[in-house]
């Protein structure tokens, strides 16, 4: 087959030529330092849980620092799922906005204020977590009550991310004013769509915090309405996973094809899938509440179907990303129906990380579809299947992709070269192998009925038939610990390495599309119709139930008279 190339247009070349200023490098780097530190601490705690499943209780030796399995699990969840992701994503969106548009932030002070707000919030939430005053895991399920500082701190992290999101939007608007008629560059547009989706989605958790949890934790109110709190929480809880995932998609669509030596297969469909995520990421929260008592079955069923709808853009992504990779592989001389996969640059640690992340994400997607399937949820709800599932999605598809991004981003920001490319490649494979073992065992345990969030090593109801799977969880977790240590080694050595000449410093990979993006229809470049549609869909899918639950709100659950952990 012949493959002809479209030369980069003048505007594309000009945009990509923009050099980050010293301030921009430090600002983005600041986000990454916090993100990677959170990942390091959170991931080192993870194996403690995995080993507990085989009755290896390391917590007893950590008594002065970590009082219990649950405090460790709280730190693991909050640091990895909330802090690592949010700080990385906001930093990365700064990058895709600035480099994507080829211009500085229009209001850098706005982003600075947002970042500082996030840091203040993080410190405020970290203190009670470390003092064992907020051992409530990362779900805000009253009347399990954490310290007020935990709730206020996490609220500030979200508010800070809103402020930074505003900064991205203002920058895109300024660019559009100066570039009328030009299609917004994909990576910049996609980052802003994600920020907009996040701002809509976090309204749920904001209302939960401001109207229920914060007044209650300060003692202004005595009790809570746990059912309503759950509805608020899951309004945000599921779009949260798309907030994590979409930046990985930005890289898979907009960068990985370039790194693999190819182009983006379809600019239109990449945009379409992002708009669809804006539309249907949020009105799906009841699929986390399938077995809740207070929500009518028909609304659960509607949200199940809407969750199926949000699966569709991920199916589009699968085609477009794999086709972009195949195009790259064929250009590199790859042949055969499946043999072309070998021609991809598997010696590039950033590519390998993202390819392996994508492979496991296919299985994460299948598990997610299963979770969303209405009554099938009865089989796996709140079982070990669920953490098994999200360790394929957030802990691999997202985290391993972000790790892959740092393999070029950190050296680029610091003017250095990546240290230990082979170790970095091996790191991704180690993560992959560890996660396959860990998550498969967790899925199996879930099907057998093992509960999630539970130290199964000390649980009294564990039958012998679970033991093999429990052991595999521990083995997988230990392999993952090795993968984390390898990653930290590569990062520390890279950061401490010498500066190198500009030609040796990695460049930001920005994939051009096979077709000129100017051929993409205008309706795939406009916020207004999609935001209106998202608002209408949200009102229809959530409005009646929210109104009903708020009207019938009953603040009658005070919780326990003692601290339950």
């Amino acid at each position, binding site marked *: 087959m012949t493959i002809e190339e479209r030369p980069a247009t003048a505007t594309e070349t000009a945009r990509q030529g923009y050099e980050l200023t010293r301030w921009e490098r430090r600002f983005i780097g600041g986000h990454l330092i916090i993100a990677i530190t959170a990942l390091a601490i959170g991931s080192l705690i993870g194996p403690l849980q995995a080993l507990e499943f085989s009755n290896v209780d390391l917590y007893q030796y950590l008594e002065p620092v970590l009082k219990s399995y649950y405090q460790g699990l709280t730190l693991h969840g909050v640091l990895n799922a909330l802090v690592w992701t949010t700080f990385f994503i906001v930093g990365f969106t700064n990058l895709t906005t600035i480099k994507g548009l080829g211009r500085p932030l229009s209001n850098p002070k706005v982003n600075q204020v947002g970042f500082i707000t996030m840091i203040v919030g993080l410190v405020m939430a970290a203190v009670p977590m470390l003092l064992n005053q907020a051992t409530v895991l990362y779900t805000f399920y009253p009347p399990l009550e954490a310290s007020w500082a935990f709730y206020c701190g996490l609220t500030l992290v979200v508010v800070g991310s809103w402020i930074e999101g505003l900064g991205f939007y203002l920058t895109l608007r300024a660019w559009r004013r100066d570039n009328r008629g030009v299609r917004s560059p994909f990576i910049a547009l996609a980052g802003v769509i994600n920020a907009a989706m996040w701002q809509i989605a976090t309204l749920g958790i904001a209302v939960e915090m401001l109207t229920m949890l914060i007044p209650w934790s300060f003692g202004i109110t005595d009790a809570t309405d746990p059912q309503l709190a759950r509805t608020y929480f899951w309004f945000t809880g599921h779009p949260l996973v798309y907030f994590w995932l979409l930046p990985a998609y930005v890289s898979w669509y907009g960068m990985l094809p370039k790194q693999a030596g190819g182009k983006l297969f379809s600019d239109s469909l990449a945009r379409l899938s992002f708009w669809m995520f804006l539309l249907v990421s949020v009105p799906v929260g009841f699929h986390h509440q399938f077995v809740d008592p207070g929500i009518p079955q028909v609304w659960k069923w509607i949200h199940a179907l809407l969750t199926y709808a949000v699966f569709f853009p991920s199916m589009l992504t699968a085609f477009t990303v794999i086709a972009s990779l195949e195009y790259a592989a064929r250009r590199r001389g790859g042949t055969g129906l499946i043999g072309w996969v070998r021609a991809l640059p598997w010696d590039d640690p950033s590519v390998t990380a993202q390819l392996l992340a994508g492979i496991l994400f296919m299985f994460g997607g299948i598990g997610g579809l299963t979770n969303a399937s209405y009554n*099938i949820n009865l089989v796996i709800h709140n079982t070990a299947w669920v953490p098994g599932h999200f360790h394929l999605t957030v802990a691999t598809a997202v985290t391993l992709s972000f790790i892959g991004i740092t393999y070029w981003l950190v050296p680029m920001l610091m003017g250095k070269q990546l240290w230990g490319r082979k170790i970095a490649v091996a790191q991704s494979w180690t993560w992959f192998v560890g996660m396959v073992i860990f998550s498969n065992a967790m899925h199996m345990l879930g099907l057998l009925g093992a509960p999630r969030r539970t130290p199964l090593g000390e649980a009294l109801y564990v039958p012998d038939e679970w033991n093999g799977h429990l052991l595999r969880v521990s083995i997988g977790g230990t392999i993952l610990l090795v993968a984390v240590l390898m990653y930290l080694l590569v990062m520390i050595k890279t950061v401490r390495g010498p500066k190198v000449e500009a030609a040796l410093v990695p460049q930001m990979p920005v994939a051009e599309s096979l077709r000129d993006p100017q051929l993409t229809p205008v309706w795939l470049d406009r916020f207004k119709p999609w935001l209106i549609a998202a608002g209408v869909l949200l009102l229809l899918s959530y409005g009646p139930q929210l109104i009903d639950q708020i009207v019938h709100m009953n603040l009658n659950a005070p919780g326990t008279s003692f601290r339950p952990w």
Partner: protein
Amino acid sequence: MGTTALDDHSDDVSDSTEHFKPTGTVFVLALFVATIILLWASVYVILLSRGVTL
């Protein structure tokens, strides 16, 4: 959703200058669909085997 709009442009690929046919992609995705059906159905069967709840 959106498919009617897409169908309006069903023959527009001809304006593309390249002739790349993603056969390998189709093959990989065929395997993917088979895996989805297999794994999803296996949990569906577990549901059916564990008794009604009404």
